[in-house]
């Protein structure tokens, strides 16, 4: 990691808020724990219980996956969740109903693919989807197959209805591309820890550090995802400068294990809550370490 001076300059630029005040708040004091689950995995009722467990476990923001039949950005774990959810009858309509029914404190972000957004409602285009998303209380969207270049219509709709539009930044994103994305992003930027698709991996790559360095100049919260599965990972990532951690596959693994071994919903929910606590605690340890490292005046 480069010298302390460089880090110091970024620490000055506090993450800016986006459209959603609740998402901004989630990143405002301390590191944000952002868990992901595919909605409807393996069925509507269990899924409700699971998402609520994440909330109890300390989630600051929750990413809710609306399953698409061709999840090209996902690895095998989340792909499995998507298949189970689709087989369980999940549709965009039921997804919105689910969000309405959900009883959680954390702000909710919908993660899905562009075709579902584009097709929703009677007329083509993303506006009606965003309108409905706002109605059910969603605070933001992540659309992994929508690059900044094609995002204008969705960006406008999000601005109209007060949703954040989160973008992913890859280890390979640099220069002009990075700027274009950072112009479009709001809420937080999803920092992809390594190349590839989603999936639990056991270490934190140097590339994460490099990405965070590249992003230092931008005043938007940086949440790192891809490959985080333990409290220790979370600690290291946050200590390395992340404003939040995004965890998906490690949680989905617990759901998958529940399906495979026919475990009671409550037991699975308990494990989700426990892992959430561990991750959250890890993130907070990392944050404490980083704050201690930095000059006292810099601590937020």
């Amino acid at each position, binding site marked *: 990691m480069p010298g302390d001076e460089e880090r110091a300059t970024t620490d000055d630029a506090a993450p800016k808020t986006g459209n959603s005040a609740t998402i901004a708040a989630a990143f405002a004091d301390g590191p944000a724990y952002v868990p992901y689950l595919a909605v409807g995995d393996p069925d509507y009722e269990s899924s409700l219980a699971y998402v609520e467990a994440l909330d109890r476990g300390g989630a600051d923001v929750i990413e809710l996956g609306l399953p698409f039949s061709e999840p090209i950005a996902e690895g095998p774990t989340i792909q499995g969740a998507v298949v189970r959810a689709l087989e369980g009858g999940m549709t965009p309509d039921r997804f919105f109903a689910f969000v309405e029914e959900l009883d959680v404190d954390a702000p909710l972000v919908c993660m899905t693919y562009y075709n579902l957004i584009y097709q929703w409602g009677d007329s083509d285009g993303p506006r009606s989807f965003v309108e409905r998303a706002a109605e059910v209380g969603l605070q933001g969207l992540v659309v992994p197959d929508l690059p900044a270049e094609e995002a204008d219509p969705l960006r406008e709709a999000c601005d109209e209805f007060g949703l954040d539009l989160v973008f992913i930044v890859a*280890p390979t994103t640099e220069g002009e*591309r990075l700027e274009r994305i950072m112009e479009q992003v709001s809420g937080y930027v999803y920092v992809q820890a390594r190349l590839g698709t989603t999936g639990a991996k056991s270490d934190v790559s140097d590339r994460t550090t490099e990405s965070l360095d590249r992003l230092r100049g931008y005043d938007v919260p940086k949440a790192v995802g891809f490959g985080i599965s333990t409290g220790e990972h979370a600690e290291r990532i946050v200590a390395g400068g992340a404003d939040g951690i995004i965890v998906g596959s490690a949680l989905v693994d617990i759901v998958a294990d529940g399906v495979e071994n026919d475990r009671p919903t409550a037991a699975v929910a308990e494990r989700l809550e426990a892992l959430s606590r561990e991750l959250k605690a890890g993130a907070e340890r990392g944050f404490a370490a980083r704050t201690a490292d930095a000059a006292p005046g810099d601590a937020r």
Partner: protein
Amino acid sequence: MTETSTTETTTRPGRERGREDGKFGRYGGQYVPEALMPAIEELTDAYRRYVLGNEDGFMDEFRERLADFGGRPTPLQRAGRLSERYGREVYLKREDLLHGGAHKLNNALGQVLLAKYMGKERIIAETGAGQHGTATAMAAAHLDMPCTIYMGERDINRQRPNVFRMKLNGSDVKPVTAGRGTLKEAISETMRDWAATVEDTHYVIGSVVGPHPFPVMVRDFQAVISEEAREQAIGKAGDLPTDVIACAGGGSNTMGSFAAFVDDGSVALHAVEAGGSTLEVDEAAGVAPNSASLYAGEEGVLHGARTKLLQDSHGQIMESHSISSGLDYAGVGPELAYLVDEGRVTPVAVDDDAALEGFHRLSRTEGIIPALETAHAFGFLEEHADELGDRVVVTVSGRGDKDLESVIEETDKRDIAGAPDMSMFTGGI
């Protein structure tokens, strides 16, 4: 000439379309995960320099290798017996004679060579019928590039000889078990691999689909089909053809067969899709028993591009179906979607039965055993010959050796005039 002669008003210039921005009217674009964008930008740059600009003599080397390794030019053959049958001149553009047995090599060789020029060290590709996979595997062996091919498990079982051929060429064939295990899933899986390996790996997409620059680049590589056919038709028939017929899966054969004719308003262009068992769709099951995305699909975003798709009312991609694996895809190239909307290309659907009959008819009367994909074009010819002009070019996109097992199974289920007795073969060949 018939209803299609009204297409003379078509937009120009055909060959420039999409090259700059990857847009074909409302279709096209680059809907991919951010991790792939730098690679796609790098590829776009390479496409401009090497393919459009012939930098370092890329296009010269490509054409030379297509000739020497691939066997180009392929003939434009007058089909004597079909001409008699239909009372008009029928010409066959013989892509079945290309090395590997299908038009797919035009594109695969172009992309693998481009990857070499770009300094990439590894090739990945998806395949449905196995034709793009075998073409890529052959090109990769020829150019000494390590190669991994993703193939749906169901397709692997339908096309075992092709799997074996890829392995013989030294490629690693990875089965994709997700979904129904066909081309759609294989594409998604290859994109996943690419997302992880994008820095040293080139993804050789097998058709005019995917994010820009793939649709234009693949079209430009495949355009050699119609460039040759146009010249050959003028040489042989003394005139442009009145009609060009080509089967469409993703649409590389179609765009390759049409590209040089798009600006010739007098030439009617027929894109023949797989009608499967019926054009009706089972929304609840998410299954389209056909692959007629141009004919029956709706606008959407899939595999990196906005185009016409087989999708349910929510936007979930349907499972397509066709007797031919190579047409069994829920999407289609964005440029074709555009040309259909513009009225320049007429989409038509031919069902499994008519395709199978076309297969047997061509085998028996012309001594050419076509791919089942190709056979759809001959199904259309049989059903609509009366509506065509005097000089019809049909692209024989591939040979049928890969399909013998399927033909046995499917013929045995039906009663097809002139088909040989299947009883000796139903146990497998």
